[in-house]
């Protein structure tokens, strides 16, 4: 499903952000990506989003060859993955419902389906009562739930999360993790880059640890593994 083969990335300043990464993530897995700042987590996430090109190696995700992908194919690839950022990235001029519906409108989904699907996803993320609110009227946790709803509204096979709890207090983060777990149980592969030790330790999922651009640990039911 997600396959990295000998993937390296060297930026212009000649520092290797990633060197010789090999990993396989299967359908339906939940994977934490951990490591200190500058270990290469962001670069790896950006590669998954087709935002950064590897300097060497191959990346295969579902049926998509990310290295040899044409520019006009990128949108269609991105429709198959959902993404959640630390800073939510909601559109401030749209309310909750519109923010989620926006993701469907962009891919030109029929209105009928939008009207059915959006309320469903909003109830899944516990936002049914807030659908008319604007992002600035919501708490951080609520905003992140909107962004989660937006990420899954198009039924992606992979959900990529870049520090989704980074701006949230522990209780709120807990709620987000519950939703992520539900999404994963429904069959979606989840890849989550994080610094949240307690979450990783408690969830007991697969952990891939990066350090200086290399995979230093890859274990099933792992823990965070670093002393803070």
């Amino acid at each position: 499903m997600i396959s990295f083969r000998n993937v390296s990335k060297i930026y212009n300043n000649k520092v290797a952000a990633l060197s010789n990464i090999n990993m396989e993530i299967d359908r339906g897995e939940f994977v934490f990506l951990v490591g200190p700042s500058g270990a290469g987590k962001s670069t790896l996430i950006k590669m998954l989003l087709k935002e950064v090109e590897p300097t060497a190696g191959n990346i295969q995700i579902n049926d998509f060859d990310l290295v040899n992908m044409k520019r006009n194919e990128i949108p269609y690839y991105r429709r198959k993955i959902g993404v959640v950022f630390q800073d939510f990235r909601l559109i401030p001029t749209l309310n909750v419902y519109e923010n989620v519906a926006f993701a469907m409108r962009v891919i030109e989904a029929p209105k009928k389906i939008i009207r059915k699907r959006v309320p469903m996803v909003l109830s899944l993320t516990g936002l049914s009562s807030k659908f008319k609110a604007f992002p600035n009227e919501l708490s951080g946790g609520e905003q992140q739930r909107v962004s989660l709803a937006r990420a899954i509204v198009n039924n992606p096979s992979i959900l990529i999360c870049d520090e989704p709890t980074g701006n949230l207090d522990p209780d709120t983060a807990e709620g987000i993790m519950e939703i992520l777990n539900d999404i994963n149980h429904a069959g979606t592969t989840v890849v989550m880059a994080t610094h949240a030790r307690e979450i990783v330790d408690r969830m007991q999922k697969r952990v891939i640890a990066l350090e200086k651009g290399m995979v230093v640990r890859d274990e099933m039911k792992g823990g965070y593994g670093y002393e803070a």
Partner: protein
Amino acid sequence: MKLNTLKYFMRDAANSLKRNKTLSISSATTVMATLFILGIFLLVMLNVRLGILDVESRLEIQVFLQKNITAEQKTALEEKIKENSNIKSYTFETQEMAIKKLEVQFGKDYKYLMEGFEKDNPLPESYIIKADKPENVSKIVSSISPLGGIEQIKDGKEIVDKLIAATNALKWVGLGLFIILIGVSLFLIGNTIKIAVFSRRREIGIMKFIGATDWFIRWPFIMEGAVIGILGALGADILLYLGYKYLITKIQKALIISTLLQPGYILISLLPYFLILGLIIGCIGSIISIKKFLDV
């Protein structure tokens, strides 16, 4: 493109235009000025062309005779004119008739210019010939010109040539000005769109992450540019119509020229071209400026 998407694009473009009202209006005004100036040159050119057609349609040839033409030469010339089947009619203008005609043309105020002409008339005698068709004018001229005793043959060609030379010069001036103004228009529309795009760069980034195609992102901005271009074209056309209508009533009162272009032409025939041109300027202006914001 689906109807829903189209509606969304149009609403988006309208909102953006409202948000950047001042800039949108100033860009539309530039487009208007560009097309207005183009229109002025176009109208002058079209009127001159009408004038040329009018001169050509008069089919008149005037053959001036030498002072010392012999009687034989005169009869030979007249014979030649009579037997030419392309000539519809002809009259002979004596020196006296020529003076009278000149007097009428000069009017009372300038009559003093012709003092002394009665005693020593400098004007030549001439035949005024009318051809049956415009294309036969040159045939007639070449059949007559080898004959003796002719001072000069004048047909409309000379005036036409002068008019053409004048309009050619005008054409280049107009074209140059037009190109410069198009450049300014493109720059200003581009700037307006650039600001619209820039103020929404976050949104564009989000759109790209959720799988929007480049064209999906581009369309609202292109529509915005197109609206600016079309509004400018519409304004230019209306302004041109009003200005030309005003001018032409003044001119037609002062001079009796019947061959001027009617103002309705601007509203009916010119408008589609203006709209298309405005649309093209608007679209190109925006496409150029969105380009660099699309790389996410």
